[in-house]
Protein backbone atom coordinates (compact mmCIF):
# COMPACT_ATOMS: atom_id res chain seq x y z
CA UNK A 1 0.00 0.00 0.00
CA UNK A 2 1.29 3.44 -0.94
CA UNK A 3 0.83 5.63 2.12
CA UNK A 4 1.51 8.73 0.08
CA UNK A 5 -1.28 8.32 -2.48
CA UNK A 6 -3.21 11.58 -2.63
CA UNK A 7 -5.39 10.87 -5.65
CA UNK A 8 -9.07 11.37 -4.93
CA UNK A 9 -12.34 12.32 -6.64
CA UNK A 10 -14.16 15.64 -7.02
CA UNK A 11 -16.62 14.63 -4.32
CA UNK A 12 -13.79 14.69 -1.78
CA UNK A 13 -12.20 17.78 -3.28
CA UNK A 14 -15.51 19.59 -2.86
CA UNK A 15 -15.33 19.20 0.91
CA UNK A 16 -12.29 21.47 1.22
CA UNK A 17 -14.18 24.62 0.16
CA UNK A 18 -16.04 26.70 2.73
CA UNK A 19 -17.77 30.07 3.07
CA UNK A 20 -15.45 33.01 3.76
CA UNK A 21 -12.35 31.04 2.89
CA UNK A 22 -9.31 32.64 1.29
CA UNK A 23 -8.86 30.84 -2.02
CA UNK A 24 -5.67 31.09 -4.05
CA UNK A 25 -5.99 30.10 -7.69
CA UNK A 26 -3.27 29.45 -10.23
CA UNK A 27 -3.46 30.77 -13.76
CA UNK A 28 -2.86 33.78 -16.00
CA UNK A 29 -5.86 34.89 -18.04
CA UNK A 30 -7.31 31.44 -17.39
CA UNK A 31 -4.25 29.66 -18.79
CA UNK A 32 -3.27 27.27 -16.02
CA UNK A 33 -6.49 27.70 -14.03
CA UNK A 34 -7.93 24.25 -13.19
CA UNK A 35 -11.24 23.95 -15.10
CA UNK A 36 -12.63 20.95 -13.20
CA UNK A 37 -11.92 22.50 -9.80
CA UNK A 38 -13.55 25.79 -10.86
CA UNK A 39 -16.73 23.89 -11.72
CA UNK A 40 -16.40 21.92 -8.50
CA UNK A 41 -16.11 25.18 -6.56
CA UNK A 42 -19.18 26.56 -8.32
CA UNK A 43 -21.21 23.44 -7.55
CA UNK A 44 -20.50 23.63 -3.81
CA UNK A 45 -22.48 26.83 -3.43
CA UNK A 46 -19.83 28.38 -1.13
CA UNK A 47 -20.01 32.15 -0.88
CA UNK A 48 -18.20 35.23 0.44
CA UNK A 49 -14.97 33.83 -0.87
CA UNK A 50 -11.79 35.91 -0.71
CA UNK A 51 -9.95 35.30 -3.96
CA UNK A 52 -6.26 35.82 -4.67
CA UNK A 53 -4.80 35.31 -8.12
CA UNK A 54 -3.20 36.99 -11.09
CA UNK A 55 -6.40 38.34 -12.68
CA UNK A 56 -10.18 37.97 -12.90
CA UNK A 57 -10.13 35.68 -15.94
CA UNK A 58 -12.84 36.17 -18.56
CA UNK A 59 -16.55 35.90 -17.79
CA UNK A 60 -16.58 32.41 -19.31
CA UNK A 61 -12.99 31.42 -18.47
CA UNK A 62 -11.24 30.38 -15.27
CA UNK A 63 -12.01 32.16 -12.01
CA UNK A 64 -14.16 34.58 -14.02
CA UNK A 65 -16.95 31.98 -14.14
CA UNK A 66 -17.12 32.00 -10.33
CA UNK A 67 -16.78 35.78 -10.00
CA UNK A 68 -19.80 36.27 -12.28
CA UNK A 69 -21.95 34.36 -9.75
CA UNK A 70 -21.38 37.17 -7.19
CA UNK A 71 -20.15 34.73 -4.55
CA UNK A 72 -16.72 36.31 -4.14
CA UNK A 73 -16.43 38.91 -1.37
CA UNK A 74 -13.02 40.18 -2.40
CA UNK A 75 -10.30 39.79 -4.97
CA UNK A 76 -6.60 40.59 -4.84
CA UNK A 77 -5.36 40.62 -8.43
CA UNK A 78 -3.11 42.51 -10.81
CA UNK A 79 -5.87 43.29 -13.29
CA UNK A 80 -9.52 42.66 -14.11
CA UNK A 81 -9.41 44.10 -17.62
CA UNK A 82 -10.50 40.88 -19.31
CA UNK A 83 -13.58 40.46 -17.12
CA UNK A 84 -15.97 43.43 -17.38
CA UNK A 85 -18.38 41.74 -14.95
CA UNK A 86 -15.72 41.98 -12.25
CA UNK A 87 -15.39 45.69 -13.02
CA UNK A 88 -19.15 46.18 -12.72
CA UNK A 89 -19.30 44.28 -9.43
CA UNK A 90 -16.45 46.40 -8.12
CA UNK A 91 -18.13 49.65 -9.18
CA UNK A 92 -21.42 48.49 -7.60
CA UNK A 93 -19.68 47.73 -4.31
CA UNK A 94 -20.41 44.01 -4.62
CA UNK A 95 -16.80 42.94 -4.97
CA UNK A 96 -13.92 44.48 -3.04
CA UNK A 97 -10.91 44.62 -5.33
CA UNK A 98 -7.31 45.24 -4.26
CA UNK A 99 -4.95 45.73 -7.17
CA UNK A 100 -1.36 44.59 -6.86
CA UNK A 101 1.52 44.87 -9.27
CA UNK A 102 1.65 41.48 -10.97
CA UNK A 103 5.13 40.39 -9.92
CA UNK A 104 4.66 41.74 -6.40
CA UNK A 105 1.50 39.68 -6.00
CA UNK A 106 3.22 36.44 -6.92
CA UNK A 107 6.09 37.33 -4.55
CA UNK A 108 3.57 37.88 -1.74
CA UNK A 109 2.17 34.42 -2.39
CA UNK A 110 5.69 33.01 -2.54
CA UNK A 111 6.61 34.75 0.73
CA UNK A 112 3.76 32.95 2.45
CA UNK A 113 4.56 29.70 0.67
CA UNK A 114 8.19 29.65 1.79
CA UNK A 115 7.49 30.65 5.38
CA UNK A 116 8.88 34.18 5.30
CA UNK A 117 7.22 37.28 6.76
CA UNK A 118 6.95 39.57 3.76
CA UNK A 119 9.39 41.75 1.86
CA UNK A 120 10.31 45.30 0.96
CA UNK A 121 10.11 46.97 -2.42
CA UNK A 122 9.96 50.37 -4.09
CA UNK A 123 7.46 49.18 -6.69
CA UNK A 124 4.13 51.07 -6.42
CA UNK A 125 5.52 53.45 -3.79
CA UNK A 126 3.77 56.79 -4.01
CA UNK A 127 0.94 55.45 -6.20
CA UNK A 128 -2.67 54.54 -5.46
CA UNK A 129 -1.59 50.91 -5.06
CA UNK A 130 0.17 51.75 -1.80
CA UNK A 131 -3.22 51.42 -0.09
CA UNK A 132 -2.38 51.45 3.62
CA UNK A 133 0.68 49.23 3.40
CA UNK A 134 3.37 50.13 5.95
CA UNK A 135 6.38 52.14 4.85
CA UNK A 136 9.65 50.87 6.30
CA UNK A 137 12.80 52.97 6.49
CA UNK A 138 16.06 51.09 6.07
CA UNK A 139 19.12 53.33 6.17
CA UNK A 140 18.06 56.48 4.36
CA UNK A 141 15.59 54.83 2.00
CA UNK A 142 11.94 54.11 2.47
CA UNK A 143 10.30 50.96 1.13
CA UNK A 144 6.81 49.56 0.96
CA UNK A 145 6.19 46.47 3.07
CA UNK A 146 4.38 43.70 1.22
CA UNK A 147 2.81 41.10 3.52
CA UNK A 148 2.88 37.36 2.84
CA UNK A 149 -0.29 35.68 1.59
CA UNK A 150 -1.45 32.21 2.58
CA UNK A 151 -4.61 30.53 1.36
CA UNK A 152 -7.03 28.41 3.31
CA UNK A 153 -7.28 26.51 0.05
CA UNK A 154 -5.18 26.61 -3.12
CA UNK A 155 -6.27 25.25 -6.49
CA UNK A 156 -3.64 24.38 -9.06
CA UNK A 157 -3.54 23.01 -12.61
CA UNK A 158 -0.69 20.68 -13.57
CA UNK A 159 0.21 18.78 -16.70
CA UNK A 160 1.36 15.73 -14.77
CA UNK A 161 1.27 14.66 -11.14
CA UNK A 162 2.55 11.50 -9.58
CA UNK A 163 0.44 10.04 -6.79
CA UNK A 164 2.55 11.82 -4.14
CA UNK A 165 1.77 15.16 -5.79
CA UNK A 166 5.07 15.89 -7.49
CA UNK A 167 4.08 18.31 -10.25
CA UNK A 168 5.13 19.15 -13.77
CA UNK A 169 3.54 22.03 -15.68
CA UNK A 170 2.89 22.79 -19.34
CA UNK A 171 4.63 25.77 -20.97
CA UNK A 172 3.05 29.11 -20.02
CA UNK A 173 0.39 27.32 -17.94
CA UNK A 174 3.02 27.16 -15.17
CA UNK A 175 2.83 30.90 -14.28
CA UNK A 176 1.70 31.38 -10.66
CA UNK A 177 0.82 27.73 -10.04
CA UNK A 178 4.03 26.65 -8.23
CA UNK A 179 3.68 29.37 -5.58
CA UNK A 180 -0.07 28.96 -5.25
CA UNK A 181 0.65 25.28 -4.55
CA UNK A 182 3.15 26.18 -1.82
CA UNK A 183 0.95 28.79 -0.14
CA UNK A 184 -2.22 26.75 0.41
CA UNK A 185 -2.99 25.37 3.84
CA UNK A 186 -4.84 22.79 1.76
CA UNK A 187 -3.64 22.47 -1.83
CA UNK A 188 -5.75 20.63 -4.40
CA UNK A 189 -4.23 19.84 -7.78
CA UNK A 190 -6.05 19.05 -10.99
CA UNK A 191 -3.76 17.13 -13.35
CA UNK A 192 -4.08 16.16 -16.99
CA UNK A 193 -2.14 12.99 -16.28
CA UNK A 194 -1.58 11.08 -13.04
CA UNK A 195 1.33 8.65 -12.92
CA UNK A 196 2.78 6.29 -10.29
CA UNK A 197 5.58 7.48 -8.00
CA UNK A 198 8.92 6.95 -9.67
CA UNK A 199 7.71 7.75 -13.15
CA UNK A 200 8.69 11.42 -13.09
CA UNK A 201 12.37 12.30 -13.41
CA UNK A 202 13.36 13.92 -10.06
CA UNK A 203 15.04 16.60 -12.14
CA UNK A 204 11.89 17.68 -14.03
CA UNK A 205 9.67 18.12 -10.97
CA UNK A 206 8.76 21.77 -10.43
CA UNK A 207 6.72 21.42 -7.23
CA UNK A 208 7.63 18.65 -4.76
CA UNK A 209 4.60 16.65 -3.62
CA UNK A 210 5.09 17.69 -0.02
CA UNK A 211 2.80 20.69 -0.60
CA UNK A 212 -0.10 18.75 -2.09
CA UNK A 213 -3.08 17.38 -0.17
CA UNK A 214 -5.36 16.10 -2.94
CA UNK A 215 -5.02 15.28 -6.64
CA UNK A 216 -7.98 14.99 -9.02
CA UNK A 217 -7.93 13.96 -12.69
CA UNK A 218 -8.66 16.63 -15.31
CA UNK A 219 -10.86 16.47 -18.38
CA UNK A 220 -9.01 19.51 -19.79
CA UNK A 221 -10.19 23.04 -20.48
CA UNK A 222 -13.95 23.23 -20.95
CA UNK A 223 -14.04 26.79 -22.28
CA UNK A 224 -13.09 28.48 -25.55
CA UNK A 225 -10.18 30.93 -25.58
CA UNK A 226 -10.92 34.37 -26.91
CA UNK A 227 -8.79 33.75 -30.00
CA UNK A 228 -10.99 30.74 -30.81
CA UNK A 229 -14.10 32.92 -30.92
CA UNK A 230 -14.57 34.83 -34.16
CA UNK A 231 -15.52 38.43 -33.54
CA UNK A 232 -14.45 38.52 -29.89
CA UNK A 233 -10.74 39.04 -30.40
Amino acid at each position, binding site marked *: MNLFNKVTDYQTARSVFFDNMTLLFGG*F*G*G*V*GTPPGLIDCLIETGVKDVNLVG*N*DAGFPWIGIGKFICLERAASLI*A*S*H*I*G*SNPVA*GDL*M*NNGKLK*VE*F*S*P*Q*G*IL*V*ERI*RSGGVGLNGFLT*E*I*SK*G*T*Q*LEYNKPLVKIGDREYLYEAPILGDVSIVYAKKADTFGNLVF*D*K*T*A*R*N*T*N*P*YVAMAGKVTVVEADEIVPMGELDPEEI*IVPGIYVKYIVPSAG*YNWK*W*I*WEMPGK*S
Partner: protein
Amino acid sequence: MGDARQIIAKRAAREVKNGMVVNLGIGIPSLVPDFLDPSTQVFFQAENGILGMGPTPATDADGNLSNAAGYPVTTLPGASYFDSAVAFGMIRRGCIDISILGALQVNEKGDLANWIVPGKRVPGVGGAMELAYGAKNLIALMMHCEKDGQPKIVKSCSLPVTTYGCVKKIITDLAVFSIIGDNLYLDELMPGSSMEEVKVKTGAGFRIASTFKNND
Protein backbone atom coordinates in the same frame (compact mmCIF):
# COMPACT_ATOMS: atom_id res chain seq x y z
CA MET B 1 -6.70 55.22 -36.59
CA GLY B 2 -5.77 51.63 -37.53
CA ASP B 3 -3.28 53.18 -39.86
CA ALA B 4 -1.98 55.57 -37.19
CA ARG B 5 -1.37 52.64 -34.87
CA GLN B 6 0.63 50.89 -37.60
CA ILE B 7 2.70 54.01 -38.14
CA ILE B 8 3.50 54.30 -34.45
CA ALA B 9 4.43 50.60 -34.25
CA LYS B 10 6.62 50.88 -37.32
CA ARG B 11 8.54 53.80 -35.84
CA ALA B 12 8.88 51.96 -32.51
CA ALA B 13 10.35 48.95 -34.31
CA ARG B 14 13.38 51.10 -35.17
CA GLU B 15 14.20 51.31 -31.45
CA VAL B 16 14.60 47.52 -31.26
CA LYS B 17 18.22 46.66 -31.98
CA ASN B 18 20.02 43.42 -32.62
CA GLY B 19 20.81 41.47 -29.46
CA MET B 20 18.17 43.08 -27.26
CA VAL B 21 15.74 41.49 -24.82
CA VAL B 22 12.36 43.09 -25.44
CA ASN B 23 9.04 43.16 -23.61
CA LEU B 24 5.98 44.41 -25.43
CA GLY B 25 2.77 45.55 -23.77
CA ILE B 26 -0.72 44.99 -25.12
CA GLY B 27 -2.29 47.30 -27.69
CA ILE B 28 -0.07 49.20 -30.14
CA PRO B 29 3.18 47.63 -28.81
CA SER B 30 1.96 44.17 -29.82
CA LEU B 31 2.14 45.31 -33.45
CA VAL B 32 5.87 46.13 -33.30
CA PRO B 33 7.19 42.66 -34.35
CA ASP B 34 5.39 43.03 -37.70
CA PHE B 35 7.79 45.84 -38.58
CA LEU B 36 11.10 44.31 -37.50
CA ASP B 37 13.67 43.44 -40.12
CA PRO B 38 13.58 39.62 -40.25
CA SER B 39 17.33 39.53 -39.72
CA THR B 40 17.00 41.22 -36.31
CA GLN B 41 17.99 38.82 -33.53
CA VAL B 42 16.09 39.66 -30.38
CA PHE B 43 14.58 37.77 -27.46
CA PHE B 44 10.97 38.62 -26.73
CA GLN B 45 10.08 38.15 -23.08
CA ALA B 46 6.54 37.82 -21.76
CA GLU B 47 5.64 38.20 -18.10
CA ASN B 48 3.52 35.04 -18.12
CA GLY B 49 6.76 33.06 -18.22
CA ILE B 50 8.53 32.84 -21.53
CA LEU B 51 11.74 34.18 -23.02
CA GLY B 52 12.28 33.63 -26.74
CA MET B 53 8.77 34.00 -28.15
CA GLY B 54 8.32 33.49 -31.86
CA PRO B 55 5.48 34.54 -34.18
CA THR B 56 1.83 33.51 -34.03
CA PRO B 57 1.50 29.87 -35.11
CA ALA B 58 0.02 29.38 -38.57
CA THR B 59 -1.86 26.30 -37.38
CA ASP B 60 -2.11 24.12 -34.25
CA ALA B 61 -2.31 26.97 -31.73
CA ASP B 62 -1.74 25.69 -28.19
CA GLY B 63 -3.82 27.20 -25.39
CA ASN B 64 -0.93 26.62 -23.00
CA LEU B 65 1.61 28.52 -25.10
CA SER B 66 0.55 32.14 -25.19
CA ASN B 67 1.82 35.65 -24.69
CA ALA B 68 0.83 37.86 -21.76
CA ALA B 69 -2.34 38.91 -23.59
CA GLY B 70 -3.37 35.26 -23.90
CA TYR B 71 -2.81 34.89 -27.63
CA PRO B 72 -0.99 31.86 -29.08
CA VAL B 73 2.70 32.19 -29.85
CA THR B 74 5.57 29.90 -30.81
CA THR B 75 9.10 29.56 -29.44
CA LEU B 76 12.44 30.20 -31.09
CA PRO B 77 15.68 28.24 -30.48
CA GLY B 78 17.04 29.21 -27.05
CA ALA B 79 13.59 29.81 -25.55
CA SER B 80 12.82 28.96 -21.92
CA TYR B 81 9.67 28.65 -19.83
CA PHE B 82 9.58 29.78 -16.20
CA ASP B 83 7.13 30.78 -13.50
CA SER B 84 5.72 34.28 -12.85
CA ALA B 85 8.17 35.04 -10.03
CA VAL B 86 11.16 34.34 -12.27
CA ALA B 87 9.50 36.35 -15.07
CA PHE B 88 9.22 39.43 -12.85
CA GLY B 89 12.57 38.76 -11.23
CA MET B 90 14.24 39.38 -14.57
CA ILE B 91 12.07 42.44 -15.16
CA ARG B 92 12.89 44.10 -11.80
CA ARG B 93 16.54 43.04 -12.01
CA GLY B 94 17.05 45.12 -15.15
CA CYS B 95 17.39 42.28 -17.66
CA ILE B 96 14.92 43.81 -20.11
CA ASP B 97 16.74 46.07 -22.55
CA ILE B 98 13.61 47.71 -23.85
CA SER B 99 10.04 47.76 -22.65
CA ILE B 100 7.44 49.18 -25.00
CA LEU B 101 4.15 50.03 -23.30
CA GLY B 102 0.89 51.61 -24.23
CA ALA B 103 0.07 54.81 -22.33
CA LEU B 104 -2.95 56.90 -21.38
CA GLN B 105 -0.90 59.96 -20.38
CA VAL B 106 2.77 60.85 -20.05
CA ASN B 107 3.95 64.05 -18.44
CA GLU B 108 7.01 66.15 -19.19
CA LYS B 109 9.00 64.43 -16.43
CA GLY B 110 8.33 60.95 -17.78
CA ASP B 111 5.62 59.98 -15.31
CA LEU B 112 3.50 57.26 -16.89
CA ALA B 113 -0.26 56.83 -16.42
CA ASN B 114 -1.67 53.72 -18.03
CA TRP B 115 -3.65 51.67 -15.56
CA ILE B 116 -6.89 53.36 -14.63
CA VAL B 117 -9.40 55.99 -15.75
CA PRO B 118 -11.28 56.59 -12.50
CA GLY B 119 -14.99 56.02 -12.91
CA LYS B 120 -14.53 54.61 -16.40
CA ARG B 121 -11.94 51.98 -17.23
CA VAL B 122 -10.43 50.12 -14.28
CA PRO B 123 -8.44 47.39 -15.91
CA GLY B 124 -5.73 47.20 -13.24
CA VAL B 125 -2.03 47.61 -13.42
CA GLY B 126 -0.84 44.16 -14.58
CA GLY B 127 2.92 44.14 -14.86
CA ALA B 128 3.31 47.77 -15.94
CA MET B 129 4.75 49.06 -12.67
CA GLU B 130 7.53 46.48 -12.62
CA LEU B 131 8.31 46.94 -16.31
CA ALA B 132 8.50 50.70 -15.81
CA TYR B 133 10.70 50.21 -12.73
CA GLY B 134 13.10 47.66 -14.15
CA ALA B 135 13.50 48.11 -17.88
CA LYS B 136 16.71 49.75 -19.06
CA ASN B 137 14.71 51.71 -21.60
CA LEU B 138 10.98 52.43 -21.49
CA ILE B 139 9.14 53.66 -24.55
CA ALA B 140 5.52 54.78 -24.38
CA LEU B 141 3.38 54.45 -27.48
CA MET B 142 0.07 56.27 -27.83
CA MET B 143 -2.09 58.39 -30.07
CA HIS B 144 -1.04 62.00 -29.63
CA CYS B 145 -4.51 63.05 -28.40
CA GLU B 146 -7.68 61.58 -26.94
CA LYS B 147 -10.59 61.08 -29.30
CA ASP B 148 -12.01 64.37 -28.02
CA GLY B 149 -8.78 66.15 -28.90
CA GLN B 150 -7.35 66.41 -25.37
CA PRO B 151 -3.55 66.14 -25.33
CA LYS B 152 -2.10 62.96 -23.78
CA ILE B 153 1.34 64.49 -23.33
CA VAL B 154 0.75 66.76 -20.36
CA LYS B 155 2.42 69.02 -17.85
CA SER B 156 1.06 66.96 -14.99
CA CYS B 157 -0.87 63.66 -15.19
CA SER B 158 -4.56 64.00 -14.30
CA LEU B 159 -4.85 60.20 -14.23
CA PRO B 160 -3.35 58.12 -11.40
CA VAL B 161 0.32 57.50 -12.08
CA THR B 162 1.68 54.02 -12.75
CA THR B 163 5.35 54.86 -12.20
CA TYR B 164 7.12 58.17 -11.79
CA GLY B 165 9.88 59.38 -14.08
CA CYS B 166 10.21 56.12 -16.01
CA VAL B 167 9.44 57.02 -19.62
CA LYS B 168 12.53 57.66 -21.78
CA LYS B 169 10.81 58.11 -25.13
CA ILE B 170 7.28 58.82 -26.40
CA ILE B 171 6.19 57.83 -29.89
CA THR B 172 2.84 59.09 -31.17
CA ASP B 173 1.21 59.41 -34.55
CA LEU B 174 2.50 62.99 -34.71
CA ALA B 175 5.93 63.03 -33.11
CA VAL B 176 8.75 61.40 -31.19
CA PHE B 177 9.91 62.89 -27.88
CA SER B 178 12.73 62.06 -25.51
CA ILE B 179 12.69 62.80 -21.81
CA ILE B 180 16.05 63.72 -20.34
CA GLY B 181 16.11 64.70 -16.70
CA ASP B 182 12.87 66.60 -16.21
CA ASN B 183 12.73 67.92 -19.72
CA LEU B 184 10.84 66.97 -22.82
CA TYR B 185 12.70 67.15 -26.16
CA LEU B 186 11.13 66.89 -29.60
CA ASP B 187 13.24 64.45 -31.60
CA GLU B 188 11.19 63.97 -34.73
CA LEU B 189 8.03 64.93 -36.52
CA MET B 190 6.16 61.96 -37.94
CA PRO B 191 5.26 61.98 -41.64
CA GLY B 192 2.48 64.43 -42.31
CA SER B 193 2.62 66.35 -39.04
CA SER B 194 3.92 69.85 -38.53
CA MET B 195 5.65 71.72 -35.76
CA GLU B 196 2.57 73.90 -35.34
CA GLU B 197 0.23 70.95 -35.01
CA VAL B 198 2.50 69.29 -32.45
CA LYS B 199 2.79 72.51 -30.43
CA VAL B 200 -0.97 72.94 -30.35
CA LYS B 201 -1.72 69.34 -29.50
CA THR B 202 0.93 68.85 -26.83
CA GLY B 203 -0.07 69.74 -23.29
CA ALA B 204 3.44 70.44 -22.05
CA GLY B 205 6.25 72.67 -23.13
CA PHE B 206 9.14 71.03 -24.97
CA ARG B 207 12.55 71.90 -26.39
CA ILE B 208 13.81 70.95 -29.82
CA ALA B 209 16.44 68.24 -29.67
CA SER B 210 19.82 69.07 -31.22
CA THR B 211 19.32 65.98 -33.39
CA PHE B 212 15.82 67.03 -34.42
CA LYS B 213 14.62 65.78 -37.77
CA ASN B 214 11.49 66.01 -39.80
CA ASN B 215 10.53 62.62 -41.17
CA ASP B 216 8.53 64.10 -43.96
